[in-house]
């Protein structure tokens, strides 16, 4: 990892040709220049806006769910509305928000920059992916307006083939969104294969690229199975083909195999890019070389591959045969190992570092804490004896919120704050950023920790009402969710404020050594104005603080002595 600098010679378009202050945001105007842009940065920004909107929508449903549960029985809605609310919450959060989340929004923006490239390999496919996402989102929202669905995000047959509601519309939306995800995945693999600059071998890539690459593998290999699953589901519902519906001789457990063959790897589509973000952030904000680069890189690929071997752990009590159950339990533990490796490597990176509690770092630390709980509680579920008791209880709900909200969303927020100055050229208030992060952390734990307890004590999930002994836990959880919402609004406010009134950002505010920070903040249309100096992505020795810039600048690499 310790090699000299190489220059990518032919990348300079000459900063001279560019009017001062022109960047990718203002180089063209009008809605067409956005909607039909081929620029990965603009596509990334559009994705970011769309995805945050989805998060907001999903969050509204979450708050409705929580408010209903503040007391047993009817609080603000009837059972049917409640069922629709949690289904839409789960489906929106999964398919519209978190699966495209980090790869399509942050990944799109930073991936070519991390490579020192001008764009992704297939800009048109990239734009198509966004348009398809938009179509899918519109279909999903239309389905909500037409009455929604009450199947749960898992669409288990035969409930989903017999219930009323917009099942067909929603599943077709999922189908469409799947294509968007596949296109992103294809694009990223091709870009990483073909667009790496000379001198950037596989093991000189920033870890975010490894993470995105591993994610893309899953996207390409797993998503098509989701596509065929929902197509078969639609065919079952509309035509009655008899593959999944027991009333027609079909097998509902087979449906679960189909569903989880995609949806388990999908949780690693979510977490892998989050882990990539964390790897970048921990190193940057500790100003220290990442510990165990290769281990982290390999563990990403290992997680991607292992993630395909464990889907049956969602089916331990479904009527899956004990044989398969035992095999899946054993295999499930295999994913824990690479995850554990990453956690320990992050810790070792911080050891003897120069840690600065900037907002992205606060979120990153929060991630380690929350993902630690989320991952460790995964062990209770992977273990056969305990999962029998815990399956489909609030323990599972708490587990996956600790991994998805506490893990992925927190990492997403960390990434947004980290790359925000690059994306929009503005700094934000560290103080308020940190206050938001702490509120989110506190609210989150209050919301979901109590769910572990009630789950193991016997509270099933997807319950509109519940026995009175669980009321205290539900109340804590609901108040926690309000606090969490406040924290998120503070975070959103900080970012909005920065957009409107933030200080201009220097090119490299955090002192990161990856290539995107060599571009201006915000970058120009073609990303880099001068030659890109290719360096070790985690070597901070060449970066020094420049008080005038209020940012880090690179000294000539050769002059730096370690």
């Amino acid at each position, binding site marked *: 990892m310790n090699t000299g600098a190489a220059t990518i010679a032919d990348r300079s378009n000459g900063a001279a040709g560019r009017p001062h202050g022109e960047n990718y945001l203002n180089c063209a105007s009008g809605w067409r220049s956005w909607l039909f842009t081929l620029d990965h940065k603009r596509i990334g920004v559009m994705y970011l806006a769309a995805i945050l909107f989805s998060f907001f929508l999903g969050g509204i449903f979450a708050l409705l769910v929580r408010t209903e549960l503040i007391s047993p029985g009817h609080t603000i809605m009837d059972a049917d509305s409640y069922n629709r609310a949690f289904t839409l919450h789960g489906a929106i959060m999964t398919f519209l928000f978190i699966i495209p989340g980090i790869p399509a929004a942050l990944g799109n923006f930073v991936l070519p920059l991390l490579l020192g490239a001008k764009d*992704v390999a297939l800009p048109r496919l990239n734009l198509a992916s966004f348009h398809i996402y938009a179509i899918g989102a519109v279909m999903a929202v239309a389905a909500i307006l037409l009455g929604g669905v009450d199947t749960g995000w898992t669409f288990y047959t035969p409930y989903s083939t017999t219930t009323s509601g917009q099942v067909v519309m929603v599943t077709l939306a999922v189908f469409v969104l799947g294509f968007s995800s596949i296109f992103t995945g294809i694009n990223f693999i091709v870009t990483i294969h073909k667009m790496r600059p000379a001198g950037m071998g596989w093991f000189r890539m920033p870890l975010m690229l490894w993470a995105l690459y591993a994610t893309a593998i899953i996207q390409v290999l797993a998503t098509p199975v989701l596509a*065929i699953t929902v197509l078969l589901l639609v065919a079952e519902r509309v035509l*009655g*083909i*008899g593959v999944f519906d027991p009333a027609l001789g079909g097998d509902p457990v*087979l449906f679960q195999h*189909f569903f989880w063959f995609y949806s388990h790897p999908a949780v690693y589509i979510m977490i892998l890019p989050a882990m990539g973000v964390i790897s970048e952030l921990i190193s940057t904000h500790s100003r220290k070389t990442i510990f165990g680069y290769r281990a982290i890189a390999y563990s990403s690929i290992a997680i991607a591959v292992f993630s395909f071997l464990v889907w049956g752990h969602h089916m331990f009590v479904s009527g899956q045969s004990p044989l398969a159950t035992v095999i899946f339990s054993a295999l499930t533990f295999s994913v824990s190992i690479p995850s554990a490796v990453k956690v320990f490597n992050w810790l070792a990176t911080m050891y003897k570092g120069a840690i600065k509690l900037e907002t992205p770092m606060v979120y990153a630390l929060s991630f380690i804490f929350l993902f630690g709980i989320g991952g460790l509680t995964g062990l209770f579920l992977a273990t056969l004896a305990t999962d029998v008791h815990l399956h489909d209880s609030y323990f599972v709900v708490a587990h996956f919120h600790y991994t998805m909200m506490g893990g992925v969303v927190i990492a997403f927020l960390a990434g947004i704050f980290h790359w925000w100055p690059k994306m929009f050229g503005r700094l934000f208030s560290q103080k308020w950023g940190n206050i938001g992060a702490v509120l989110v952390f506190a609210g989150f734990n209050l919301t979901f920790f109590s769910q572990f307890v009630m789950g193991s004590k016997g509270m099933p999930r997807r319950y509109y009402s519940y026995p009175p002994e669980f009321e205290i836990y539900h109340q804590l959880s609901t108040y926690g969710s309000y606090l969490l919402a406040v924290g998120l609004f503070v975070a959103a406010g900080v970012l909005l404020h920065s957009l409107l009134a933030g200080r201009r950002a220097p090119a490299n505010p955090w002192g990161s050594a990856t290539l995107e920070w060599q571009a201006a903040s915000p970058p120009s249309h073609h990303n880099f104005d001068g030659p890109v100096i290719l360096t070790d992505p985690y070597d901070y020795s060449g970066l020094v603080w420049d008080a005038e810039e209020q940012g880090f600048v690179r000294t000539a690499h050769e002059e730096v002595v370690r």
Partner: protein
Amino acid sequence: MASVAANPRYEGKHHLAHHFDTRRQQFDSHKLAMWLFLVTEVLMFGGLFCAYTIYRASHPEIFLFAHTLLDKNLGAVNTIVLLFSSFTMAWAVRAAMLGERRRLSALLAITLLCGFGFLGIKAVEYNHKWQHGFLWGQHFAYAELQDYLAGHGTDAATGPAPDPAADAHAAAVMAELDLAAAVTVAHGHDPALIPRNVHIFFGIYFVMTGLHGIHVLAGMIVIGWLLRRSLRGDFGTRNYTAVDLGGLYWHLVDLIWIFLFPLLYLIH
């Protein structure tokens, strides 16, 4: 072959996108993307093959019985048609690489025609199934099946021909499997011996061939578009990426049929 320079459009058509350094890099990127797309297609059909395998392994009697309602001959002819179209497509790619433009157009046209032929034959088959109510799941007409077996039993052209050897074989399979009495069946034509849940076979048959048919249609649209461009003179020795990639897609469609044919039509 018309000379490359003769067409004024040609020069503009093989430009290098701004973010690539070389044409080779651009071509490689597009080709890799196409292969990855084919990977997703394989996995998507993989789901259907999974459903097929599951039901065939657990209910062989259904498949053994129901496949006799399909027309082997039409299936075989269609296989040949598709193989031939793959051949002409591969040849078309060669022609594109060599800059043989008129030949390229002709070969694409033949490929397209084969596509029509395939779908035409498929339509004949579907029509037959439709007439007799041999449809998916819920819509399978068991009552008509009884009539059909009683009436058409000996009509070799449209229905299963009596085949004592096959009967015996089926009986042996059934005995070996030792399934419940309700599902005892022979290969023959005694209406009383129809296995339960024959409709599941047709559910799978229609989904598999239907999805494949949609892919054929998509491939034909691609080839039609290639043909149009080729007639316009867009392709040449330095610009054949689209033909190459379109060809890959068409071959994949063929490849899947290569497996569908024996699995659906030639069950023993």
